[in-house]
């Protein structure tokens, strides 16, 4: 009843091709954006903004990047954290070495640097496929982290490669409070998400999906494999790079190369698997799940089991529950949380009638 598109006629090609063709979706998105921009900064406490919502948005962006590469173009990558590191360190160096560099340009520069590195490490994908490629991307993960640690220039010769991100300032306004940082991150994420949504429903996105489904067949019908795959690597790394820059500038403040470890790469991969491979909303749902789950587990364990269990047992218990839940979700809904939302939409369309 609520979600029925009957009566919404499209009378022009523009209306047929718009980004959200169903009116309810448009209204829904506007409501979500309004809540995110206006209600959230007012209602949520500083802790929530700083420790949960900002990382959630940043990881969503990284998951979005990986989803473009893995979900749409079908190239499994285990090196996303390394591309985040490139973005973070490149932005830092842009700010450090170019006088009066605008912060947004530095973020874009960080993204572009990550994209360049992504293309370099994407080259093997032209020959190597599947899990062989996944393991090969680990080369990027380990090599980049090693390089950033060993070459002092990247971290301005600080000890052990730690960098402290500069203040963010746009047109004289300094983003210091969690609210301001949150809004800045939100704005960047929204713009990039809309861009991604448009990209995947354009000819570029369709070429990616063709390559994902069968690259030989895609080549036969005239899609340029090299161009398409490398573009996927570049765009994906750009998103990861911007996410990394935000991670350093808006979230942590001081980062070291070791912070962008393989664990982080796996976390981002978990986000897209749990959220839904090959869907934009899936990246957000998955990021919410993976960011919130450890916190929820922490709270549960500390509140209910603090007196009962020694800390060593409870930390192991968290590991077990985390792993167990991931397996559980994969079994129950292998297509991810985005699929649940799809099923919900189908139900809403008919509700309250059974057929």
């Amino acid at each position, binding site marked *: 009843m609520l979600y029925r598109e009957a009566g919404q006629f499209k009378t022009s090609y523009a209306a047929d091709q718009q980004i959200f063709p169903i009116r309810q979706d448009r209204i829904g998105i506007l409501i979500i954006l309004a809540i995110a921009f206006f209600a959230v900064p007012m209602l949520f406490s500083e802790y929530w903004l700083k420790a949960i919502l900002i990382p959630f948005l940043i990881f969503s962006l990284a998951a979005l990047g990986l989803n473009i590469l*893995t979900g749409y173009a079908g190239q*499994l990558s285990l090196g996303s954290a390394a591309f985040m590191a490139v973005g973070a360190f490149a932005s830092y160096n842009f700010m450090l070495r170019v006088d009066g560099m605008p912060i947004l340009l530095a973020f874009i520069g960080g993204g572009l640097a990550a994209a360049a590195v992504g293309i370099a490490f994407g080259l*093997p994908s032209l*020959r*190597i*496929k*599947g*899990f*062989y490629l*996944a*393991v*090969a991307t*680990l*080369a990027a993960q*380990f*090599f980049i*982290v*090693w390089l950033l*640690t*060993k070459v002092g220039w990247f971290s301005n010769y600080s000890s052990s490669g730690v960098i402290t991100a500069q203040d963010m300032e746009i047109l004289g306004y300094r983003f210091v409070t969690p609210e301001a940082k949150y809004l800045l991150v939100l704005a960047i994420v929204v713009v990039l998400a809309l861009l991604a949504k448009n990209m995947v429903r354009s000819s570029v996105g369709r070429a990616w999906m063709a390559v994902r489904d*069968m*690259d*030989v*067949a895609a080549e*036969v019908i005239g899609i340029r494999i090299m161009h398409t795959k490398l573009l996927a690597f570049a765009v994906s790394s750009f998103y990861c790079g911007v996410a990394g820059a935000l991670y350093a500038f808006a979230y942590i403040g001081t980062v070291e190369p070791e912070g962008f470890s*393989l664990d982080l790469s*796996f976390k981002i*991969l*978990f986000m897209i*698997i749990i959220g839904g*491979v090959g869907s934009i909303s899936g990246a957000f749902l998955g990021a919410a799940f993976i960011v919130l789950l450890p916190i929820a587990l922490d709270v549960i364990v500390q509140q209910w089991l603090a007196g009962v269990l020694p800390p*060593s*047992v409870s930390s*192991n*218990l*968290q*590991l*077990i529950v*985390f*792993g*167990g*839940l*991931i*397996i559980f979700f*994969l*079994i129950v809904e*292998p297509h991810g949380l985005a699929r649940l939302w799809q099923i919900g939409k189908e139900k809403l369309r008919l509700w309250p009638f059974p057929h």
Partner: protein
Amino acid sequence: MQFFIEVLLGGLLSGVMYSFVALGFVLIYKASGVFNFAQGAMVFAAALTFVGFQEMGLPFPAALLAAFAVMVVLGIVTERVVLRPLVNQPPITLFMATIGLTYVIEGLAQGVWGANVRGLELGIEDVPVQWLMDSTGIGVSTFDLFGAGVAALLVTLLALFFQYTRIGRALRAVADDHQAALSIGIPLQTIWRIVWAVAGFVALVAGLIWGARNGVSFSLTFTALKALPVLILGGFTSIPGAIVGGLIIGSTEKLAEVYLGEYVGGGIDSWFPYVMALAFLLVRPEGLFGEKHIDRV
């Protein structure tokens, strides 16, 4: 020259250790197409279980048997709880499930046996072989030689098992073609259970050797990361590939560390094997011994 040979031999022997872990990956991938990331956690769990049983006062053979039994149970439970509900899912989903499994196994093993570092004593000293040292001046560790011997034994046993037993034939049939194997009445799920149990056994042997070398600690799980380049170099589906890949990775890694490391600041062993494997892959995209993949439209 002497130094070169010494480094090369040391590298080859440590490569054998990587092969152990890669072997477990290959067995499971061959039989079920699952890229089992939990192999490293299984190595850790097996070694920890063995040491735990020894601390409880069990003698060596009994502890070995008990640890093996635990690994078999783990394999069966994994098949039942994780793999069976995920039949026919895309490989990446199964891969993620094994990463989830990694967390569960790590948590379980540490929860049961505790997280502190233990030593593991196999009764073999880590000293250079004396007669070789005297005659040629090349130092080769007895322990490494022992490890290589165990590896040779293990591979021979596995080869015999695959070649001459009924189960082994069934395993090869399943590895060849799931559908065909099913249609002639080979019980797929039983085979998977057996494969996971065998992989558990390989993990136990790897855990004992690695544990005796470096102590039984959480870092044992990182052996999986050492084994991955070996795996792609040799090919996911080849047991000889795992051994040869291990030898290549082990030797080049040590040689690079000694001869190149000083120019670039050291610590290159974290990524050098991967770059090395990548270079091989560019020439042979399915690894040295992997099955040639033919794309059809």
